[in-house]
């Protein structure tokens, strides 16, 4: 029962082997994911409570002990809003990663190994979907939705994430399927299905994981752009892009309410990119050593 072993020492060793920037990125990602998941249990203010109604707070306040990151143009607590806003960004990118790697990754690994007509059909479909500029296709799909709930946005973005993963997985699967150990497995009479799951997919996984981190960063920007255009999850649900769009109207008075959600988005994207790069480089060293 290997997987029941305490995973913490291994995780600690992995953490110790990271360069400083990657450590910081990992800490940021873990912290923001933790905060987003447990937002309801953390001592946060109601993200939609407008303090100026009862005269408790003013609009566009600067940071203070009462409002750690100040308030927005409706005197809502910005600290609490970026954490609740993280829920949208992170959920959408999580769904995209899961849909992309499970469906796209599997499909790509499968057709890269089996080849033939199925491969041609799958890759032609992928090419057509990738022939659209991403945001434009996303806009076209979102337009006709009656409601824009977190579920709807996640499903659309998740669906659009499948083709690029398929392409990455297929490219890797193609080269791995030509390797000696795959040939050897076939030669001793292993069924094709077993070869796919035991030999090909485990070796495609590392590159999919490295791609997933960078792609997740891309999805956060994509969702942010959508929210900035007012076409992501509907208000009053806070979204980073929506907060930026709202705060930019007061930018002549104060830049701070723009700075807070922009910072949250940029740091998250930067963290994912940095960790993703590190994972990719580690994978390359390993691949070369084989």
């Amino acid at each position, binding site marked *: 029962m290997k997987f029941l072993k305490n995973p913490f020492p291994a995780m600690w060793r992995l953490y110790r082997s990271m360069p400083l920037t990657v450590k910081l990125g990992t800490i940021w990602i873990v912290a923001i994911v933790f905060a987003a998941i447990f937002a309801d249990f953390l001592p946060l203010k109601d993200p939609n409570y407008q303090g100026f109604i009862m005269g408790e707070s003013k609009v566009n306040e600067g940071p203070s002990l009462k409002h750690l990151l100040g308030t927005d143009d409706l005197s809502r607590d910005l600290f609490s809003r970026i954490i609740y806003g993280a829920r949208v960004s992170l959920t959408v990118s999580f769904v995209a990663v899961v849909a992309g790697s499970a469906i796209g990754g599997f499909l790509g690994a499968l057709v890269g190994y089996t080849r033939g007509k199925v491969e041609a059909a799958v890759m*032609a479909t992928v090419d057509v979907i990738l022939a*659209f500029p991403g945001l434009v*296709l996303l806009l076209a799909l979102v*337009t006709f*939705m009656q409601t824009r709930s977190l579920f709807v946005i996640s499903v659309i973005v998740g669906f659009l994430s499948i083709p690029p993963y398929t392409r990455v997985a297929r490219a890797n699967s193609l080269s791995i399927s030509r390797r000696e150990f795959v040939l050897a497995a076939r030669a001793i009479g292993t069924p094709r299905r077993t070869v796919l799951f035991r030999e090909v997919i485990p070796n495609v996984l590392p590159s999919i994981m490295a791609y997933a981190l960078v792609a997740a960063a891309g999805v956060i*920007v994509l969702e*942010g752009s959508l929210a900035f255009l007012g*076409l992501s999850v509907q208000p009053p649900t806070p979204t980073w*892009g929506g907060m930026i769009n709202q705060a930019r109207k007061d930018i002549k008075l104060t830049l701070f309410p723009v700075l807070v959600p922009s910072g949250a988005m940029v740091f998250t994207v930067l963290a994912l990119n940095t960790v993703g790069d590190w994972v990719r480089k580690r994978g390359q060293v390993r691949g070369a050593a084989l």
Partner: protein
Amino acid sequence: MVKTLGLRLVRLLATVFAVSFLTFFMTSLLPGDPVDTIIPPGIGERDEVLVAQIREELGLNDPFLVRYGNWIGDVVQGDFGKSYVTDQPVLSEITARLPVTAELAIVAVLMSVFLAIPLGIASAYKQGKAVDNSISAVVQFLLSVPPFVVGIFLIWGLALQAGVLPATGWVRLTESLTGNIESVILPASALALSQLAVFTRLVRADMISTLQENYVLSARAKGLTDGYVLFRHAFRPSSLSLITVVGLNIGALLGGTVVIEQLFAVPGLGRKLLEAINTRDIIVVQGIVLFISAIYVIINTAVDLIYMVVDPRIRVKSA
């Protein structure tokens, strides 16, 4: 060569055709009735006879494939239909706004490429030194800042604080040259910065491997100056991958223009697309999405062809 060219053109047409089908498919089968755009429901009594008449006129009662056939048949002849909202031909709405978006995109690409080349070369030349480390750090950071965030900070810094450039709006080239240049600088820079990061990274990585080649060593041994070797000998092969990545990034750029045009109130194609989305003007959305995607596909094919012309190795392989 001619055969390859023909094959590429056939593939191009097939892709554009498939893209048009998918565009129509998406926008037709999703919920929402175009008649609701023309006669919004809930405002007074709805004349059901009139609604039925409009449905018949627009051919909405026909089966899906017939409707697609009619639409694509007209599109091929340059007729993208008429807007449900403004009653203007969709094509003229597109061509009226295309020059604005094209100018924005071209200026952004030129800015990013011409900055990325010296930065990438300097970074590769001074690999591991302070210059390289600081360029790489800035690039990594820029890579993570979405264009619309860059845009807001540019507006804040250069338009509101320094007051040197207009914050929003657009002056057409035909009205005033200086006004046009002033209005294009900020939105184009916002688009260019994230592209700049991608290109600089690429040039650096490419140049680092090229600089280890023997012919670079022999050029240096001949006594040529470093600058001459860097640009004339080492950079030339790297320009190939740069062309490809610039082509691939046109998609991100076209998506970016939608957001940037909205932020800077630039009357381009992207802004029209958003307008059409918000008024549920389906036929305009279809037209613009197809148009932008077709341009993207054509540019990518063109890039492949340029690549073939520039690099003899690929020409031989594919012929």
